[in-house]
C-alpha cells in the first residue's frame, strides 16, 4: 500500500518547525507505524537527506518510550495501543496521514518527533519510589495481601509512562499518570507507609509542570495500558488525605 505522510520536522528546540510531505510506497498492512518511519528513513538516507528523528525502544508495548501523534491522536487510531504496535491496516490505501510529536506544553520538542518527557520522570523522582529499608525479609504470611488487591494494584502499576494522557488532555494535565503511580503504591502495605509524603511531593512536582484536571476523560481513551479513570479520584483522595495525617 501507499501512504502520503505529513511529518513534523524541527531542527532543534529553538526551531519553529513545519510539516513536510513524503510519499511512501510498497508498504505492508501488517507493518507498524514505526516500521513505516524506518522505511521512510532508509529512503531519505538513500537520497542523502536527513532521517526523521523519533523515539522507540522495545517495540512490544511495554517500555513507554515511543509516542507520536497520528492524525491528532496520541499513539494512533487504534485505542489502547502504543505507536510501535499500531498497524498500517488502520489506514486505507492512498490515505494521507499526519504525524507529529506528542503535543503538550510540558513536552518541548527536541527534534522532529522527539519530545522531552522528563517532566514525568521528575514526578516519579519526587516520591514515586519506595524508600524504605525493609530489613530482613518478613515471614511470607506476616502481611497478607489478597489476590484482588494485587490485581487492582497491578491495573494501576501497568502505566508505562508514555505521556499519551498528557498529550490527549485539553489541559495538558498529568493527573492520570501521577494517579496511577501513586495508587499502585498506596494499595500495597509496605509502600503505603509513605503515602502521605508521597502524595504531597508528587502532586507538587506534577503541578509545577503540568495542568489541572477538568475530568474531560480524554486520557483514558488513548492510554495504551487502559489505566482506569479512578486513578484521578484516587490522586485527589491521597492529596486531601495527607492534610489530615502526620507525615513520617
Amino acid at each position, binding site marked *: 500500500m501507499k501512504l502520503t505522510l505529513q511529518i513534523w520536522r524541527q531542527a532543534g528546540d529553538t526551531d519553529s518547525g513545519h510539516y513536510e510531505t513524503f510519499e511512501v510506497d510498497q508498504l505492508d498492512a501488517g507493518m507498524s507505524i514505526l516500521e513505516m518511519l524506518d522505511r521512510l528513513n532508509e529512503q531519505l538516507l538513500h537520497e542523502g537527506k536527513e532521517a526523521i528523528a523519533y523515539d522507540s525502544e522495545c517495540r512490544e508495548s511495554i517500555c513507554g518510550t515511543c509516542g507520536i501523534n497520528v492524525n491528532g491522536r496520541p499513539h494512533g487510531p487504534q485505542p489502547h495501543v502504543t505507536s510501535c504496535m499500531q498497524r498500517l491496516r488502520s489506514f486505507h490505501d492512498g490515505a494521507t496521514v499526519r504525524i507529529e510529536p506528542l503535543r503538550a506544553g510540558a513536552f518541548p520538542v527536541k527534534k522532529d518527533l522527539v519530545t522531552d518527557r522528563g517532566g514525568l520522570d521528575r514526578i516519579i523522582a519526587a516520591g514515586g519510589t519506595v524508600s524504605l529499608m525493609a530489613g530482613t525479609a518478613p515471614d511470607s504470611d506476616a502481611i497478607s495481601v489478597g489476590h484482588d488487591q494485587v490485581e487492582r494494584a497491578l491495573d494501576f502499576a501497568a502505566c508505562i509512562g508514555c505521556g499519551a494522557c498528557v498529550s490527549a488532555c*485539553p489541559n*495538558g494535565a498529568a493527573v492520570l499518570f501521577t494517579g496511577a503511580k501513586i495508587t499502585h503504591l498506596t494499595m500495597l502495605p509496605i509502600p503505603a507507609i509513605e503515602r502521605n509524603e508521597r502524595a504531597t511531593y508528587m502532586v507538587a512536582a506534577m503541578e509545577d509542570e503540568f495542568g489541572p484536571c477538568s475530568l474531560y476523560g480524554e486520557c483514558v481513551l488513548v492510554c495504551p495500558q487502559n489505566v482506569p479513570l479512578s486513578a484521578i479520584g484516587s490522586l485527589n483522595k491521597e492529596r486531601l488525605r495527607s492534610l489530615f495525617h502526620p507525615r513520617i
Partner: protein
Amino acid sequence: MSVTPDTGATPVTLNKPELPPQFRVSARRQKRLPNWGLKAVMAITGVIGALFLAMHLFGNLKVYTGAEHFNKYAYWLRHVGEPLLPANAVVWVLRVVLAGCIVLHIVSAAILWVRGRKARGKFSAKRRGGLRSFEATLMPLTGICIALFVVFHIADLTLGVQPLASETFQEPTDTAAFAYQNLIASFSRPWSAAIYIVMMVLLSIHVSHGLYTVVSDLGALGKRLRAVLITIGGATAVFILLGNASIPIAVLIGVLS
C-alpha cells in the same frame, strides 16, 4: 526516624537517597494556590450552590399553590426567626454566603482555566469524545452565562431595576410581599420568559457535570460510585430544568396569571 509495621521483621527505616538538585522537591516552585486545593474549593462552593438551587426550586414550586401562599412564603423568608433575629437576617446571611461561594468559585475556575491553557501549549488537543468531554468543554461558557443571569435575575425580581424588571414591579413592604405579581409580570414578557427557559437548560448542564466532578475532586474512587453520581447529578439537573422552566411556560400559556 523509624516506623514499625506489624511484620515481625526488623524495624523499617526511611532511607531516602539524596536526589540531584533538579529533582529535589524543596527546590521546586510550590504553588501558593495548588490546583487540587482550588478544585476542592470549587467542589465545596459548587455543592453549596447546588443545595441552594434545590431549596430555591422548592420555593419556586410554591407558585402553583396560588398567589396568597407564594407571597406569604416570600414574606416569611424576610421575617424568619423574628423576633429573635432582626428582619432580613436569614436572607442576608444566605446572600453573603452565596456571594462568597460565587466569588471563590469563579476566581478558582479562572485560575485553573489559565493554568490549563498554559500547560496545553500552543497546539490544542483534538476532542475525541471522552466520557464527559462535551460537558467539560462547556463549563466555562455555561458558567459565564450563569453569572450574567444571576445579575439579571436579581435586577429583575429582587431590586426591580428598570428596564430589566417589569414596569409594574412592586417592592416588598413591612407587611406584605408581591413576589407572585412581580413574577407573573416578568414572565408575561416573552423575551424575559425565553431568557429564563434557556438559562435553565444551561444551568442544568453546568450542575450535572459539576456534581459529577465533585466526587472525583473530593477523592471518591471507582466506576460504580461514578455511575451513581452521574445519575444523581443528572437527576438533579432534570429536576431543576423541569421544575423551574415549567413556571415561565405556565405563565406564557396562561396556566398562571
